[in-house]
């Protein structure tokens, strides 16, 4: 989190001196950053800059070679593999390729995220209906994903990612396969989710898109964080920061990955 936003801001993600090497080649090199509760951050960089690797390290599909990642109460250096599932329930992940279950209908694709947490059928029906309404797909709940457009499939993936009310949503090039109109639609949906208090960290190589929407932007190149700045904010930034500062976060009080 940048200093001008105040020392008290609660961070949801803290990354300290993070490096990741594959066969002695740096994919990420000495990354330091924070993401606050309810913040929207674009992670920008060309292909191979390390964006996907950084997201993987945040949802702990992989672990750093050096340094550490902290997501809520989960610390990568103290993380047991058996506990990774608990972290995944607190974060949502969306990919360019949608990654849906094509042998199950729309409802079940979203419900699966709640099935793993052991929610009752009643709760699942209620929450999935609510989220599908939010993404505009409730009327297609009984259809199979393969019969839907790319934009609709991505909305299913987003619905699945947010159905458990995650503290943070990680999106890895979520608009990479979509045309400009649908891209805008998906971005608006992500902003809408963000407005509900979920922090969003979205990786993209599309700088034009980022300039269009404006937000905090992290520039990544050759595995190094080159810039961390606010390109422009379309909305009331002071109100937004006030909400960020008050929000105890979805991991609950008593944790903070850092206030630097």
């Amino acid at each position, binding site marked *: 989190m940048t200093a001008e936003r105040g020392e008290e801001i609660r961070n949801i993600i803290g990354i300290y001196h993070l490096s990741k090497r594959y066969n002695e080649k740096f994919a990420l090199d000495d990354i330091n950053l924070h993401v606050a509760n309810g913040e929207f951050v674009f992670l920008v960089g060309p292909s191979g800059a390390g964006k996907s690797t950084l997201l993987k390290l945040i*949802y702990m599909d992989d672990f750093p070679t050096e340094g550490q990642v902290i997501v809520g109460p989960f610390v990568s250096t103290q993380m047991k*593999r*058996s506990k990774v*599932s*608990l*972290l*995944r*329930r607190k974060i949502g*992940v969306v990919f360019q390729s949608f*990654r*849906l*279950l094509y*042998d199950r209908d729309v409802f079940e694709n979203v419900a*699966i*995220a709640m*099935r*793993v*947490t*052991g*929610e*009752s*059928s009643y709760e699942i029906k209620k929450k999935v209906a609510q989220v599908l309404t939010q993404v505009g797909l409730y009327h297609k709940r009984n259809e199979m994903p393969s019969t839907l457009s790319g934009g609709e499939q991505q909305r299913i993936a987003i619905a*699945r990612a947010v159905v*458990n009310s995650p503290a943070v949503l990680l999106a890895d090039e979520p608009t990479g396969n979509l045309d400009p109109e649908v891209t805008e639609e998906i971005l608006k949906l992500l902003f809408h989710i963000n407005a509900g208090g979920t922090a969003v960290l979205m990786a993209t190589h599309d700088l034009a898109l980022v300039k269009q929407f404006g937000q905090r932007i992290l520039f990544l190149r050759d595995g190094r964080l080159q810039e961390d700045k606010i390109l422009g904010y379309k909305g009331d930034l002071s109100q937004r920061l006030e909400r960020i500062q008050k929000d105890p976060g979805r991991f609950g009080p008593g944790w903070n990955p850092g206030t630097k």
Partner: protein
Amino acid sequence: MNWNQATYLMREAFRTMNRQRAVTIVSVAIMSLSLLILAVFLMITDNMMLLMDRSKDEMKLYVYLDDGLTNEQMNAAYNGIIRMEAVDELVFISKDEAFAEFRAQLGEESELLEALETNPLPASFRVSVKDVYKETATLETLASTIGRLDGVAEVNYGKEFIERFSSITHAVLYVDMVVGLIVILSSLFIIANTVHLAVVSRKETIEILKLVGATNRFITTPFFIEGAFQGGIAALISLAALSAIFGAGRNAVPGLVFFSPDKAVIFVLVCIAMGALGSLAALRRYLRIEIG
């Protein structure tokens, strides 16, 4: 794992088998063939064991007595034998009983015996030996000890037969153990690989489940249930096929015996366990390598 998860996973296992009917049918067919080989092997082993047990029952010592012994002398010989630790049962066969048995054995040719003026057969004891003593060396010692008793003319225990039987038994058991191990390992290998193929075909599903926070137990349970169910079905199919083979082979091999009901139940339970364990082995390996 709570009740909601358990019921969902149970439903999910059967729903997946229904959704992927072709894969399930191929898996069950491969498992059935593999288990049929195991069942055939076990039935052959079972029959061989029965044959060996029956042959062991026939292991007896025939103690022929001198002619003209008094009752006291015969009693003394009887008491001398019955007191021996290895002796299980002792039956006295008088000269007349021996002659009657011989006549019965000869059947239609028993008329030949009319030519005899006296009964040439001696009185004897038929000595049954306790199972643990039915070894060549023990029988030889026992025969030698009985042979030294007063009034005993000769002791016969089919030495050559017992020696050959003993060596065949050991060879058969040795081969049986080696073949059994190979068949069981092959069956497990085939089941694990069949399940592994099913796991690979559901790689994307597993990765998505991991992504949304499913634990390894949540992911493995449906495979475990499917493996156990398919193992059970495959066991029943292989038993049915074995029964057909048994029906055809019964005439060719007289005395062939099918699995007893309790052995059939044990076979099905073992196959269920093999299916479940095969699934688990395949899945554990996959989860470790592909997802971690």
